[in-house]
């Protein structure tokens, strides 16, 4: 009996180890010395980003994360009174974003998080800080494909669990061949080897992929977005910082820091965000009531 108990305990302990190995990293405990003159005192702010999306949210090992999401997050956190070393970066993959906010694992999320009604039932949104649109990434020497209609009879890659590729098949080119992979990195290797003719998702994600050093110069973003994806800042429902975040984003845009961050993160791809989307009604801030 005793032996059985012991082994049960051992199993439980190893399960706990495995589980903790899977939980989002919380390696950066910095910020204790952040100084009390800041509005937030010595508190840290936990910001959820993606770690695997070059150009938006990307982090290798324990190095400083880079990308447009990260730059906006730093600016907004700065406006809220946090210094940069008070920011604790947490990885929030797509499927985990609502749970992370509800469970209090993060204070806000900047992770290519489109504002939708379904999501708004569980979390709150500030922003949007960027308006993206679904677009196509093609080989740099390919001038045939200028929009989703040109994909008839071509091969297209996207990731499992997004409907971007299906949307093209349903609405633009019924004769397109779809391949869905676990990540965009796989799609890019197929695009390079010629097995697919285009990769589809939001334009800024594609630009980020094309801007990585190893892909530099090989691919171009078509620049003909055909959906509207409003990237919001995910916050817990009813969070009172919502208005402050909106003000920070507006200030960032007015100051020109927004444009600068965008250019820096998509350098060398010839990508420019759709002006119409980013200054039109789609870029209006979410109301912070309710």
């Amino acid at each position: 009996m005793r032996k059985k108990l012991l082994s049960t305990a051992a199993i439980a302990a190893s399960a706990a180890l495995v589980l903790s190995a899977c939980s989002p990293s919380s390696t950066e405990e910095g910020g204790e010395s952040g100084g009390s003159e800041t509005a937030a005192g010595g508190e840290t702010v936990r910001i959820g980003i993606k770690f695997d999306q070059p150009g938006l949210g990307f982090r290798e090992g324990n190095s400083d994360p880079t990308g447009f999401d990260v730059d906006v997050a730093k600016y907004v956190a700065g406006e809220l009174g946090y210094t940069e070393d008070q920011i604790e970066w947490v990885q929030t993959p797509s499927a985990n974003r609502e749970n992370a906010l509800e469970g209090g694992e993060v204070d806000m999320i900047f992770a290519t998080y489109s504002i939708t009604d379904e999501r708004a039932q569980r979390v709150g949104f500030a922003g949007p800080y960027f308006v993206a649109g679904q677009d196509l990434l093609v080989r740099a020497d390919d001038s045939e494909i200028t929009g989703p209609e040109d994909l008839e009879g071509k091969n297209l890659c996207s990731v499992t669990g997004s409907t971007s590729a299906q949307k093209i098949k349903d609405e633009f080119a019924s004769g397109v061949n779809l391949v869905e992979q676990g990540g965009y990195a796989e799609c890019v290797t197929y695009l390079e080897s010629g097995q697919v003719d285009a990769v589809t998702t939001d334009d800024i994600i594609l630009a980020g992929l094309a801007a990585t050093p190893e892909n530099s110069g090989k691919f171009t973003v078509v620049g003909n977005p055909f959906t509207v994806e409003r990237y919001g800042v995910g916050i817990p429902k009813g969070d009172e910082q919502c208005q402050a975040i909106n003000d920070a984003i507006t200030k960032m845009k007015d100051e020109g820091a927004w444009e600068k961050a965008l250019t820096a993160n998509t350098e060398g791809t010839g990508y420019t965000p759709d002006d119409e989307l980013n200054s039109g009604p789609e870029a209006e801030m979410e109301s912070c009531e309710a």
Partner: protein
Amino acid sequence: MNGFLELFADYDIFGAFWMNIRLTLLAAVGSFVLGTVLAIFRISPVGSLRGIGTAYVNTIRNTPLTIIMVLGVLAVWGQLKIEFFQDFDLNFFTYAVIALSLYHASFVCEAIRSGVNTVPLGQAEAARAIGLSFLPAARLVVLPQALRGAVTPLGNTLIALTKNTTVAAAASVAEASGLMKSMIEFNPDLMIYIFLTIAIGFCIIVIPMGILTTWLSDKLAVAR
């Protein structure tokens, strides 16, 4: 309850599970055929065949299925550009069936070999004594008894195969786990219903297999 209705209205859940079932059926046939051949290799009197069988089982059984699946699509399709069919859906389905068959064949082989061990040595000796050479002896005397003894481990392999079909999402096959990802992406408000739908769906497919296995192993057991 409304959550379930909404999910079933918005997503082709039956279609996705049907894909898992088709993958299971075809890969079960594929892995059974290959596994039986491997088992014959491993019990054969020819040293080099035994070596091949052992090498295959040890290599494939110890390689994660995801690696085999991803290698097939990323390397064989993506770089070597080997295509079975022009139609992408059919092509990737074929890749997934092959990967599942190759992987589970090693387990089928070991299940059958464990069945062979339940056949008393005297059976093989008697078969040889009446003049049957190795293959007829294996086919007519040893394997029929071995398969009856191997029903339980074969059933376990089939159950594992059924659940492993979810790995086919890595090969761009639209099955239940891929659909689950889409549902979570677009309906996080229904998270709990999504999990229950997928979990219950697999239970409905797998539990009868377990019952059938138990029933068959009782019914087919060789009384000695």
